[in-house]
């Protein structure tokens, strides 16, 4: 007899047992399976002696009341956020994950989404590069002319007459730096490595600039010699004051 047939036979015997027949009477009709059926029927008979538990009526009422209160609370509660609903729905497919992850899963998924988006954008950026994955090499071409810094010093003497018939000579020195010729332009030109070189054969060539411009700041001032100080007085004499105190009105 196959297992499934034996299971059907056992089920029939159990039905007879629960209808009130004695085990021996049942087994008399199945003599060839007595040894297999008897222990199972005895255990089943024992199990039937266990009481069918019932909750007390008060507990049943209280349980129903608690549930209905929970319904009210849920109805009045604000609608959960989209991401909370999303996580709930996700966890409903994997209930075993719920106690392990809980809210942590939300953070993990969010972090994963952010990382994924970042990766996608990075990939798109690389694909738009015509040079593809090749590493561009840079060639620096400095200007052929090294600029010479220079400046112009402008000296402006001034004279201030004081009431005591004396004068104060001051000189203002103004320096205007300038660079001649025009400032240096450094051009970085990406050159795709079209021919692949064997790294073991040759050491990579490092482009070296032919000239290295050095700019110092502030630029050295080539002062022209200052005029004598105080400057020679070539003024016409001041006309006589009408008030006699030497001041013009």
């Amino acid at each position, binding site marked *: 007899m196959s297992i499934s047939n034996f299971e059907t036979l*056992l089920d029939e015997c159990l039905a007879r047992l629960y209808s009130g027949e004695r085990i021996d009477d049942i087994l008399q009709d199945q003599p060839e399976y007595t040894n297999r059926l008897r222990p199972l029927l005895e255990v*089943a008979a024992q*199990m039937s002696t266990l009481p069918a538990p019932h*909750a007390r009526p008060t507990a049943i009422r209280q*349980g*129903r009341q608690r549930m209905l209160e929970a319904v009210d609370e849920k109805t009045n509660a604000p609608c959960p956020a989209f991401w909370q*609903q999303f996580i709930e729905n996700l966890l409903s497919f994997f209930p075993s994950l719920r106690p392990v992850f809980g809210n942590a899963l939300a953070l993990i998924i969010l972090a994963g989404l952010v990382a994924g988006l970042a990766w996608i954008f990075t990939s798109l950026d690389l694909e738009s590069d015509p040079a593809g994955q090749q590493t561009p090499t840079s060639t620096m071409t400095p200007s052929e002319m090294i600029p010479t810094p220079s400046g112009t010093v402008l000296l402006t003497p001034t004279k201030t007459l004081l009431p005591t018939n004396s004068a104060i000579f001051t000189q203002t020195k103004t320096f205007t730096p300038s660079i001649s010729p025009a400032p240096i332009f450094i051009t970085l030109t990406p050159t795709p490595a079209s021919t692949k070189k064997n790294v073991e054969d040759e050491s990579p060539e490092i482009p070296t600039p032919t000239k290295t411009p050095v700019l110092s700041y502030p630029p050295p001032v080539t002062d022209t010699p200052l005029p004598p100080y105080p400057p020679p007085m070539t003024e016409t004499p001041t006309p006589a004051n009408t008030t006699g105190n030497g001041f013009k009105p």
Partner: protein
Amino acid sequence: MSEAANNDATLVQRAKDGDKTAFAALYERYQPPVFTYVYYRVDSQTLAEDLTAEVFVRMVAKIRTYRAASPLLAWLYTIARNLITDHYRQASRLTPLHERTAMSQIDLSEEAHCRLQETELRTALKKLSEDQRQVVLLKFIERRSNAQIAALLGKTEGAIKSLQHRALGALRRYLNKPNKNEYI
């Protein structure tokens, strides 16, 4: 889909929409099997009542996540199992060791007054696999038919017969009742 399952699906849909009468109907239908399941896991009438009530509170909270693909009772059993696990985990963390020892001694003294056979059966029942225990409780305690059990657990009647066969064999081994005639 069976008529009961169809009816369940309608009730669940109404419950998802917030219909209190649908929740009440589900409670009337599933409170007894859930209580039996919990009772034979915790061995305490009061605790079983409390945890059963909690199962239905959690059902309200999670009803939106329930998928009609699995039977409602199986889903409620899962909730009950998680609650029982949480309860014992919490109890073991909160109860000091010397109190736990004292409690176990009390349990032993109570067991002395209980029928030995019943204690053995309950202990053996706890050792069964989840599927086997559910079938045994529904079949031998609640006296439901194979068709009803199949509909409640979302299995075929053939699967239920197979499970009850294996469950009885396992129970016999756990009850340590050697039989002179070799079993299978």
